[in-house]
């Protein structure tokens, strides 16, 4: 068989094996992390991550506060008011 074809074929094999392997291990890693976090991290923090709600707004707030307070102020925690 022509060399380029054969290397194309081996690319197909190596490539797909790698992709399956990596994504399989991604699943494994994810489950591992879930277990670790569940075990070792207090649920206190288990509030919805502000970042995932509105990082933009937060960035804005931080920037604003930094500027207004000339960096003297610092955001330690941002919570939604119920």
């Amino acid at each position, binding site marked *: 068989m022509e060399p*380029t*074809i054969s*290397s*194309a*074929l081996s*690319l*197909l094999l*190596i*490539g*797909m094996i*790698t*992709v*399956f*392997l*990596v*994504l*399989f*291990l*991604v*699943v494994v*890693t*994810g*489950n*591992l*992390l*879930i*277990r*670790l*976090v*569940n075990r070792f*991290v*207090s*649920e206190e*923090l*288990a*509030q*919805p*991550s*502000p*970042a*995932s709600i509105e*990082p*933009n707004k*937060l*960035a*804005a*707030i*931080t*920037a604003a506060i930094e500027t207004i307070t000339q960096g003297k102020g610092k*955001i330690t925690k*941002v919570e939604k008011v119920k």
Partner: protein
Amino acid sequence: MDLLGKLYRMTAIQNIVDEPQILLMILIAFFLLYLGIKKQYEPLLLVPIAFGMLIANFPGGGMGVEKIDENLTLYQIAKEHGIMNFVYYSLIKTGFLPPIIFMGVGALTDFGPMLRNLRLAFFGAAAQIGIFTVLISAVLIGFDLKEAASLGIIGGADGPTAIYTTIKLAPHLLGPIAIAAYSYMALVPVIIPLVVRLTTNKKELLINMKQQDKLFPSKTPIKNMQTLKILFPIGVGSLVALLVPSSVPLIGLLMFGNLVKEIGASTGRLHKAASDSILNIATIFLGLAVGATMTAHAFLKMETLLIIAGGFVAFAISIAGGVYAVKVYNLLAKKKINPLIGATGLSAVPMASRVANEIALKHDPNNHLLQYAMASNISGVIGSAVAAGVLISFLS
């Protein structure tokens, strides 16, 4: 009179008369603008690409990307070949912008849906098959390996990944490959339903993920998503870096962008830069410069048509691959998965998921699987980047 002669020679008219195919290029640029503006095909990229193509094709404008002596300094490139070549050779051909854009993508990505349905992430793998099958076919019809790989990577259905791979392997094909990648991503609402119709039956499409979850609940509920979302990009980034180091420029920066987002307020400034100014600026210059590579003599070739055709095939095969992977899984597992979840492994985030969701709802108005689709959809991005890494490490 001589003055008017000088004036006429200053214009691009004579050049276009001598080289009428330039006119064709301009018309193609207009058509792409139409697709981007009126048909809303990925306007954020197609509009700059098309406009860059437009201004690149007026002889004398000096806005077209050229082959240059690669020993020139960037300063000399700008002086002798103009600002567009300056942008192309400093930001594009260096491979700089695609990873930068990936950083922005990461800063806009939420791994939440993927973490909630982790095992579905696995189906981002099968949907990469189109990349490699088209690679082989391309070799068979005479492309060399590097060109074939760049053609195949269109099947990854991920713009920056396709561009990055092409820059590394076959930069002379950058224009058509970028166009094909973004056009077909825009055509996902057409391609996915087509392939799904050909590869699935109504019964499979009725599989309701929520129901399956109720029947077979997961054993590990997530107690602290916030911490998990911070650890995940670090963990997965390291894992991929260990197994496919050549994909680090893409995956590494994707995960960095995601990390600064999930950390929250204390890195809010970095998140803002990555997802806003950096991403937007990079998009403008990437688009214009990629478009500027499409000058008449570089674009009007048989290869271009083959790339357009091959790209479509790659997309279709990838989708089918994802679908069949799910079918095989369903043969073995009790907890069934809707084959649409396989189709979204294509990536083309988030449009593929929205399309899959609509198809599911069409068959059963209560079958909302957007969140599930996003899982394989996002993992498809990782899948393509990994495939790209493999191609680059073996071919570059």
